[in-house]
C-alpha cells in the first residue's frame, strides 16, 4: 500500500508544472474578480453605494427637514442654498429626494428579500418533487402571471388603505412568481445530477438535499434576478406613489413628488421640480440593472472576461 502511494505521489509531482501547483482560486474569488472587470457594473455599484449612503446619512447632508415648509421660498430654482431648488410649499427638493430614497430603497430591499425567499421555497419544492405538486404550484404561478400585476397591486392597495408596511406585503405577495419559475427550472436540471443521487442514496433527508445541496448551486441566477428585481420594485413603487396609491404625503417618495409636480404652472416655471425626482429613479434603477447584468456575466462560467 505505502509503496503504491509513494509511486503515485512522485509521478504526479513530476508531471505537475510548478505554476499549477498553487491553490486554485475559490469560486467566490473568480466571480468577484470577473465582476470588478466589468466597467458598467462597477459604475453601477459606485452610484448605488453613493445613493444608499446619502439616503442613510441624509440628516448629516442637509440642513433642512423633508417636511419643513417655507412659503416665502416657493418654487425657487437650484442655488447654493437649495441645491435642486424648492417645491410648491417651499420644501427643499434635494432633502426630500434623500429622505424619499430611504423609503424607496427600504421598500425595494425588504420586498425583494421576502419575495425571493418565498419564490425560492416554492420553486425548489415544485422543481424537486415534480409531479402533481409541481403542476399545482406552477398553474398558480401561471394564473397570477396572466393577470396584469399592476391591476392586482392597485386593487389591493385601494382595498387596504395604502401604507409602507402594506405596500411591502403586497409587493411580496406578487413578487415571488418570477423567482419561483427560475428556481424551479434550475432544480429540474440539478436534481438529476450525481451529487443529488449520492446524497439520496446516503439517506440524506429531502429538506436537507433541497436547501443544503441543490439550492446553493442555484444561488447565481437567484442573486441576479433579485438584483434586477429591486429596480423593478422601485419603478412600481414610484408608479403607485405617482398615482397617489403608494407612499402617502407628507412622507416624501420619488413617486409622490412627481405627482405633486404634474401641474401646468409648475411645468412652465419650475422645470427642476418634476425633473430631479425622476432622474433619481432613473439613476437608481440603472445602477441595479448594471450590477445585475454584471453579476449575470460573472456567474456565467461560459463568459471569460
Amino acid at each position, binding site marked *: 500500500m505505502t509503496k503504491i502511494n509513494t509511486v503515485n505521489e512522485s509521478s504526479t509531482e513530476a508531471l505537475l508544472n510548478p505554476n499549477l501547483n498553487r491553490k486554485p482560486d475559490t469560486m467566490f474569488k473568480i466571480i468577484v474578480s470577473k465582476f470588478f472587470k466589468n466597467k458598467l457594473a462597477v459604475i453601477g455599484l459606485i452610484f448605488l453605494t453613493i445613493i444608499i449612503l446619502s439616503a442613510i446619512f441624509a440628516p448629516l447632508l442637509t440642513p433642512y427637514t423633508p417636511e419643513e415648509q417655507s412659503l416665502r421660498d416657493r418654487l425657487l430654482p437650484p442655488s447654493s442654498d437649495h441645491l435642486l431648488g424648492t417645491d410648491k410649499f417651499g420644501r427643499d427638493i434635494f432633502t426630500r429626494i434623500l429622505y424619499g430614497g430611504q423609503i424607496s430603497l427600504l421598500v425595494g430591499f425588504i420586498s425583494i428579500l421576502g419575495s425571493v425567499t418565498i419564490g425560492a421555497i416554492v420553486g425548489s419544492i415544485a422543481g424537486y418533487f415534480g409531479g402533481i405538486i409541481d403542476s399545482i404550484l406552477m*398553474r*398558480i404561478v*401561471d*394564473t*397570477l*402571471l*396572466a*393577470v*396584469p*400585476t*399592476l*391591476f*392586482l397591486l*392597485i*386593487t*389591493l*392597495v*385601494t*382595498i387596504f388603505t395604502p401604507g409602507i408596511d402594506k405596500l411591502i406585503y403586497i409587493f411580496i405577495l406578487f413578487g415571488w412568481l418570477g423567482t419561483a419559475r427560475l428556481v424551479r427550472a434550475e432544480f429540474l436540471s440539478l436534481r438529476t445530477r450525481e451529487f443529488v443521487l449520492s446524497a439520496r442514496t446516503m439517506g440524506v433527508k429531502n429538506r436537507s438535499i433541497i436547501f443544503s445541496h441543490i439550492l446553493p448551486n442555484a444561488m447565481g441566477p437567484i442573486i441576479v434576478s433579485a438584483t434586477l428585481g429591486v*429596480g423593478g420594485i422601485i*419603478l412600481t413603487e*414610484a*408608479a403607485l406613489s*405617482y*398615482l*397617489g*396609491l403608494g407612499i402617502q404625503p407628507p412622507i416624501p417618495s420619488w413617486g409622490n413628488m*412627481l405627482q405633486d*409636480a*404634474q401641474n*401646468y404652472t409648475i*411645468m*412652465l416655471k419650475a*422645470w427642476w421640480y*418634476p*425633473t430631479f*425626482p*425622476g432622474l433619481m*429613479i*432613473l439613476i437608481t*434603477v*440603472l445602477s441595479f*440593472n*448594471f450590477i445585475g447584468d454584471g453579476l449575470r456575466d460573472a456567474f456565467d462560467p461560459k463568459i471569460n472576461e
Partner: protein
Amino acid sequence: MLSYIIRRILTAIPLLIGITLISFFIVQIAPGDPTSLLMNPDIKPEDKVKFIEKYGLDDPIYIQYFKWVGNMVQGDFGNSLLKKGTPVSEMIMNRLPNTITLMIAATIIAIIFSILIGVYSATRPYSKSDYLFSTGSFLGLATPNFWLGLMLIMFTAVNLEWFPTGGVADLDAPFSIWDRIHHLILPAFVLASADMAAYTRHTRSSMIEVLNQDYIRTAKAKGLRSRKVIFKHGLRNGLTPVVTLFGLSLPSLVGGAAIVERVFAWPGLGSLFIESSFTRDYPVIMALIVLSSVFIVIGNIVADILYAVIDPRIEY
C-alpha cells in the same frame, strides 16, 4: 398545427377559471359589506332586504361566484355602484376604442423602431452608433414611463407647445384625423418606449447570431445584395425570439397603458380602472381585471402560433 392550436386553447381554460377566481375573491376580502357602499345609511330596513335579495347578496359565496361568471359569459358585467348604476359593459365600450388605438399605435412604433435600430446595430456591432443605441435602450429600460411622459409634456407640450398636454382631441374643435394623431403621438411614444428598448436589444442580439450563420454567408457568396440578405434571409430568422418577447410583454403593456393614460388624461380603460379603484367601484374593477387577463391569455396564444408560422422548423 391545428391540433396544437386546439391544445393551446384548451390549456387556457383552467387559466381563465383561475383568473375569474382571483378577481372575484380579491374583492371579497375587501372590508365592509357591499350594501354600505351603495346606499345611504338612513334607508329603511325592508328596502335593504329587498336590495340584498335583488342582487343575491344573501346567497352562499360560491353561488354568487357562479352567477357572476354566468352573467359575464353572456356579456353582462353588472352595473356600476356609482354613476347611477350604468351597465359596466357600456362604460367599457365607451372607453375601449381609445385604449385600442393607443396600444396599436404604441406596438407599431415599438416594432418598427426596434427592428430598424436592432438590425442597424447588428450589422455594425460594437461601432459608435451601436454603443449609442445600446445606451439608449439601457436608459429606456430604467426610465419610469410616467416620468418620461411628464418630461415630454413639460418640454414639448407646455413650454414649446408642439403638442397638446393630454386628452384624445381638442374639446371645441370639429373631428379631424390630424387632431387625433396630434394627440396620440406623445402617449403612444411613451407607451412604446419601454418595449422598444427590450425589443431592440433582443433583435440586435438575435440578428448578430443569425448573420453569422452559414446560410447567410452562402446568400452573400451567391452575390445577393446585402439589403436583401439581411431583410429576407436574416430578419425572418432573427425575429422569432422577439415574437415570444411580444407575448411576454403584454401584461406590462396593459399595466403601462393604465399609467400612460393617467399621465396624458387619455380616456381609456386604464384610466377607467384607476378612477374606479379610487371610488372602489368593484364591478368595474372585477370586469377590467378579467378582461385584461383574457386579452393577455389570447395574446400569448397568438404569439405562440405566430412563432410557429415564422419558424417552419418548429413542429408540434
